[in-house]
């Protein structure tokens, strides 16, 4: 099943901690239940964002690899 993101942020071209900070800010502004997707071509994002989601108690939905970078999806659960 492919999760539909409520909001997608294109953070390609920005580097650590850019994509992670985009995710943190977007989750803060989102409603509970929303899924936020961040597109990133910084390899650190694949590990940074899931680690953050775990610490923050938010749900990591998917880490998808594409030709133009990774798409990391997180659902706001609290």
């Amino acid at each position: 099943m492919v999760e539909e993101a409520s909001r997608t942020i294109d953070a390609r071209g920005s580097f650590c901690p850019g994509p992670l900070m985009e995710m943190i800010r977007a989750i803060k502004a989102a409603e509970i239940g929303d899924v936020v997707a961040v597109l990133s071509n910084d390899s650190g994002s694949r590990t940074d964002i899931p680690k953050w989601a775990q610490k923050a108690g938010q749900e990591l939905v998917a880490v998808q690899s594409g030709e133009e970078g990774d798409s990391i999806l997180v659902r706001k659960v609290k």
Partner: protein
Amino acid sequence: MSKKLLIIGSGTAGLMVANLVARQLRGPVAHRDIEVTVLGERDEYVYQPGFLYVAFDLWEPDSLRRKVADLLSPGVRFVHDRAERIDAAAQSVTTRTGQTLQYDYLVIATGSQLNLTEIPGLEEGAHWFYTLEGALRLREALKSFEGGRLVLSVGIPHKCPVAPVEFTMMFDDWARARGIREKTEITYTYPVARPHTIASVADFADREFTARGIEIETFFNMDSIDAQGKVLHSQEGTDVPYDLLVAIPPHMGDTLGAASGLAEKGNWYPTDRNLLRVGAYKNIFAVGDTTNIPVSKAGSVAHFESEVLADNLVGLLTDGREPGHAYTGRAFCFIETGLEQATYISFDFAHPPTVPTPSRSIHLFKQTYNRIHWANLKAVM
């Protein structure tokens, strides 16, 4: 027809670009063949790296301030007014008092500023040393600090990325010198997985903080502050009680960019990292903190960028030569590691920094540099 260079901003980047261009084009500037104008909201320049010293009562605030007019090279015109809107099509800038200034080349050097409203309770519950008023208020709070929980919490992005690390280590030293370290707990919080965005600085901070008994909280994004109960809440669900909270509020760019439809998220200008051009405009440049370039927002970056931009502007203003000088991401930052020791980092886009062992000599060099800065600003050195 004279060529007009307009620079918005009377901070480090704006003054350096104006002075570097004016010094290289003395003749044409004196004969008004080339007009160099600085449009600035503030007519007083403040040396921001000095705020750290003010907070610890080591420097008097007056030593940080000088009149903008006293810092400009001969021939540079200063307009004390606020830029309200850039009209890129008409090549003009309108000001708060209703003036319209025309330009052939525009340099945006409007810096970065604290966003004090993003985190509820911040203004009531926290201190900061990123403004002169804030540093003075913190100075008074430190005078009456007799021990307890000091929490330093970092929000990003912010200017001078090493300053929070410096403050933490200086505070540790200061508390030891006052004999109150044993009854003081120090906690440092940072938004990402490690205590700094730069890997080597993060490793250095990890080692130093651990050795000095300073607690580190990572993945900590300030959410709100309970000023009454003296508790800092993070977005990740961690609560940290404090007696004295020093926060680094996240920064944002000046609203001019948004009002003119030129800036992006956070009011930062989309800027070419080498030529410093804004968007697709051939005659608009951004320099210093206000760009979206993935490099530290720091005076040193503004300095290195200003030289590149000034050299390119000299070519454009004299014979329309295409910009050929490229900014390579160079930066140099001192790191005070206490009241009498310091180290430094030097890096560019391709070469991340290493952190040498702190020493007293580097601290003395930093103290010397604090004076050299004025000569750099005036472009006499």
